[in-house]
Structure formats: C-alpha cells, structure tokens
C-alpha cells in the first residue's frame, strides 16, 4: 500500500553553544492512510521534536540535519511522485499546512486566543485555507462543532467559558477544518481527566473512521496507545527503539525499554504484581555514548550493547526490509524468549 507520510532517516538537532543537542537521530517512521500511529516516549525523548521537525515548525536554533519527509497525498501529488517537505519553500509549506497536515496542539488553554470568540478562531482557520463566502464559512464552522459534539450555540463563546474537554474538542474541530489527510496530535488529552480523555479518544477514532485521515498521536502514556493506536513507535533519547502493531507490543514487547514502560502501569485484568518502573533518568543528548542509549538503565545490558548500531530489525533476528513493516526492534541482544519478568525489578 502507498503510505501517506514517510519519514526516513530524519535527524533534528538544536544548535547550542557547546555543540549540537541531538534531539532526534535517524528516525524512520511511516504513516499509512487511515491509520493511527502512536509515538510514545518520556519527556525529552524527542517525540514532539520529531513531529514538529518533520513539519518544519521548529524555531531556531533547531536544525534538520539529515533525512527526508515524503508526503504522498493525492491532492498535491495527483498520484505521482511524493513531495519532500524538507526541500519545500516557505510558500509551498504554507499550502501544505492545515490543508494536508493539521496539528492539534498540546495545550488547548494556550493555543486558543483568550480574547477571541471560538467562532472567529475557527473562521480564521477556514478562511486561511479555503475560499468560501462568509455565510458558507459560518455554516462550516457550525458543522465542525457538530462533528466534535459541541452544541452550535457555543460558537459565540470565549475560550474561558468552555471546559477543558470542550476546548480540546474545539482544537480538534479546527484541525479538521480543511479536511486534512494527516492529523498530528501532540498530547491532546494530557491535561484532562481520564473520563473526558476516554470520551475524546473515542471521538477521534470515530472521526477518523468517518473522514479517513491518518493520525500521528504523540503521548507519554503507553497504556493509552495500546487501546487507541494501530501501530506504536517507542522513542527514547531521540531514537526509535521499537515499532510494531499495538497488539504485538502489548503481548511481546521486544526492547527492554518497552518492557520497562509496560511494567510501569498496572493492567486491569491479569494477576496482581508489583510495578517496576524504570530506574535512572534519560541520557545527555549533547554527548551521546556509543551504542544503545538505554545501556545505563537497562537490566539486560551486556558489553556487546556498546556496539549496537540502533537500526531497527525484525524481532527474532530476521533481517528486515528497509522501512518499518511488522514488529521491529533496535535491540539485537534481548530476544522474546528471554524472561519478561523480574529482570528489571
């Protein structure tokens, strides 16, 4: 199948006085049409930098140092060759943004302007990218609110008059204004309680089914992704450690880091057990150690880890074709046969 967005070998650095901070290193990630891909990692692992770097929204001193980001949307390519976001000019990017790739920003509180009515902000997004009359645009805005389940009467409300969940829905409605092919969601539910969170997630899935866009869902909450995402990519210290269908990741996590994450929250079913967590803290990205960045915190670490080249390979040692298909891991040391429990605790 033809993917919709293909990130390959992407590296992003923040240029600082003492040298580059390598926030994202040689990451490959593919998004297929109508698919929800979850990007998961702890704070500072580079997941947001990856998404914003690929869409070129990062401000200096950020710098894309390698890779390509190919977009296959038919409205732009007409079925022909993909376009590369990294070689686009300012204008070309402007045409891409929101129409093709929309973003739901992290905190709806800050992303909505407190002194403008919700209606005006949605209309701004509509007018910036679609040419339609005022009347049509207003109808479109009302339709967008319908879509996310907010009564039309709230169009004239100010952001502070809405609850946190409603504000987040407004953000999602705005992202869908131009019927994008790809929606990047940067922790859209982080500030919300679990009930509202669940509500919004099921709404996202339902909208995705109806409108057929692909979602890149960024979060630090792996348990949430296990339910929501079709595929999950686990990121650590700027690198992808493991990708795979969420079922595979849940059943047999291959990388020790993923296992650590899965041991960090309780499961509803299954036996009672102590939560392990992952001791230690992420490494300094300015001065990376050779080999796997997870060595200092890894319960499985052996001397050979320092020679690991961090390419993703098929779980079970099968050499994979380039591009993440199936269940891939960056750890050649730990095999699925090795014990799941006990080592990290």
């Amino acid at each position, binding site marked *: 199948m033809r993917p919709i967005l293909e990130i390959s070998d992407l590296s992003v650095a923040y240029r600082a006085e003492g040298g580059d901070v390598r926030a994202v290193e*040689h990451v490959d990630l593919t998004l297929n049409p109508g698919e929800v891909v979850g990007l998961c990692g702890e704070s500072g692992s580079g997941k947001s930098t990856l998404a914003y770097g690929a869409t070129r929204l990062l401000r*200096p001193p950020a*710098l894309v140092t*390698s890779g390509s980001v190919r977009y296959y949307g038919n409205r732009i390519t007409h079925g022909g060759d993909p376009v590369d976001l990294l*070689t686009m000019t300012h204008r070309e990017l402007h045409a891409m943004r929101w129409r093709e790739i929309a973003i739901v920003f992290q905190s709806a509180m800050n992303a909505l302007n407190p002194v403008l009515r919700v209606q005006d902000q949605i209309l701004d997004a509509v007018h910036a990218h679609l040419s339609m009359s005022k009347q049509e645009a207003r109808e479109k805005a009302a339709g967008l609110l319908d879509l996310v389940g907010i009564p039309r009467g709230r169009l004239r409300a100010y952001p502070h008059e809405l609850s946190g969940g409603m504000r987040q829905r407004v953000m999602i409605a705005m992202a869908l204004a131009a019927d994008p092919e790809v929606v990047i969601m940067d922790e859209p539910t982080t500030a919300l309680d679990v009930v509202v969170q669940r509500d919004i997630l099921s709404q996202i899935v339902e909208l995705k089914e109806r409108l057929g866009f692909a979602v890149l869902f960024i979060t630090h909450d792996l348990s949430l992704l296990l339910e929501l995402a079709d595929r999950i990519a686990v990121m650590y210290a700027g690198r992808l450690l493991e990708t795979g269908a969420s079922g595979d990741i849940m059943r047999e996590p291959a990388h020790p880091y993923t296992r650590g994450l899965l041991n960090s929250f309780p499961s509803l079913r299954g036996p009672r057990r102590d939560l392990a967590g992952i001791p230690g803290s992420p490494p300094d990205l300015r001065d*990376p150690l*050779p080999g796997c960045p997870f060595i200092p915190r890894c319960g499985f670490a052996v001397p050979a880890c320092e020679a690991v080249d961090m390419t993703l390979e098929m779980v079970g040692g099968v050499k994979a074709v380039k591009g993440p298909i199936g269940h891939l891991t960056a750890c050649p040391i730990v095999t699925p046969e090795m014990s799941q429990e006990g080592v990290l605790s």
Partner: protein
Amino acid sequence: MSAVRDVWRNLPLKAKIGTVLFAMFVLAAIIGPELAPYDPSYQNPDPALLMAQPSARHLLGTTQTGQDVLSQVLVGIRQTMLLAIVVGVFATAVSVIVGVTSAFLGGVWDELLSLVSNVFLVIPALPLLVLLLGYLSGKGQWPTIIVLSVLGWPWGARVVRAQTLMIRNRDFVAASRESGERTWRILAFEIIPNEVSLIAASFVNTVLYAIGASVALAFVGLTDLNSWSLGTILFWAQSNQALTLGAWWWFVPPGLAVALIGTSLVLLNSGIDELGSPRLRASRGAAKIAGHKIWGTDPTPVLAQLTADRSGIGEFLHSFSRDSLLDKTPAGGDLR
C-alpha cells in the same frame, strides 16, 4: 565580574553605544570641572579674545565677554547631569512608592493615590514651571530640581501601578502572603524585583525629561543665570546673538552635549527593556545557523539545503566563522 561581562555581551549594540556614551558624560560630570582650563565666569579683558574662534589656548573659542566656552561646557555638564539624576532619583522613588502601594493596598488608598497622581498628571506643567521658577529664580538649581521632581513622578506611578496590579494576583504573591510575610517585605522582595526593568526604564525616561525641561527653562531664562549649566550657556549665547554673529563654537558644543545625553538615554532605555525580559532577547532578530540567517517565522532549516545553496564567496567567508566547526560534524553523522 563574569556576571557583568555576561550581561554586557548579551546587550544589543544600541544599548552598548548608549552605555558608553552615557558613561562618558557621567565621567565628564565627575572630573570635567577639574579639567576646565579656566574659571568659566572669568571675563578675559584682552580685546583679541572677545568672541574668538577656537584656538590652541581656547579649544572651543570664547564668548562675547571673553569667557572660555570649553570650561563653561565642562562645568555645565556637571550641573545639568546632577540636576537630571537627582530629579530622576526623586521622581522615580516617589512614583514607585505611590504606584506600588496604591496597587497593592487597593480600596480607598488606591482611589486616593490615583486621584492625586491624576491631578498631578493634568496640571499643565510648563505654565506652572514658568510661574514657580519666576518667583524662585536666583537661588541656584534647587528650585528647578524640586519643581521638576514634583511634576515628574505621576507617569511612572501610573505604569508601576498597572504592573503591580498584574503581579499582585499572581500565585507567588498569594503564597508569600499565606506564609505570613509582612506587607512591606512582600512589596520589597516579591513585587518590586519583578518590576526592576520597568522602574529602570522609568528612571531613564525621567532623567531624559529633566534634562529636556531644565535646558528649556534655562534657555528662556527661568533659572539661576549665575550658575553654569548647559541651558544657561545656551541662554547667554542666544541673548548675545551668537547665531547671527556666526559664533557657532558658542552654541554648538552645549547643544550637541544635550543632544548626545538624550540620545544615550534613549539607547540605554531600549537595552534595559531587553535585559529585564530574557524572552524579548531570545525572540529578537535572526539566529545564525551554518552561516545563514534564520528568522523565528521561517520553517525549520535543513542543513543539506543551507550548505547547498551557499555561494562561493559565502562559503569562503563562512569557513572563518566559529560556527563552521559545527557543520563539519553534522549531528549524529558520525555515529551511525
């Protein structure tokens, strides 16, 4: 010491120019009168030295009565700077006290103090100054200092009040109140440090206002004309028709000094603003990456493109910069 050097390095160019210029005038105010070659009031009876052009003995020439212009300017700078800084300190202190207390205490106090500052704000300053100084002239600089201080504080007070109203509702103030800090301590250690850049800017503005007003008042003769300030030099030059007689050396140096002091203060003001809010500094101007200017609104730069479309000369020049060392080892390039 290194903290001072850090601050200096982060200052924008115009603020550096302003600081150097202002420091020069402060220096002139401190040691200028000692350097003055003559007594500024001494009238040389030598007829060749009446309104004489600049020469080796009188670097800035002489006045119509044979006084040395250079000595007058050097003494005048001290007088004018002293007046301006004293007015600045007085007026700023009053404006901070009034602004902070009225905003922090609120209620009746706020109403009262706002009323007072509004009254002072609408008093037509110039006629009042003319009137008061008409009575008080001949008693040195102090009448001017007092009148300018009394009229100079309300602007600052309004600004400080507005800022304090904003800060007063922040959580850290509530927290310090909750932890039982005394009101004066909250004001002095919690609120005022947040307003330092604002207060400094207000001080600089007040100094600027004092210089402008005092020179203007002296120029129209409303001050003690026996003391030498930049304004009185201009007054004597004007009343003796220096311009029509073509004696440029008489009015250009003091006029230039006033203009330069004003310029230095304006430049300084913009620097203080950026010093006080680091975020302003970060978003100012373009970042330089791999020899290219990248503005905050530009799309994220791509290294391959930056190095590809550089011209031969640009490449050559870039190879000298410290930045080019970073390009040789692109991030992550050597690891894979």
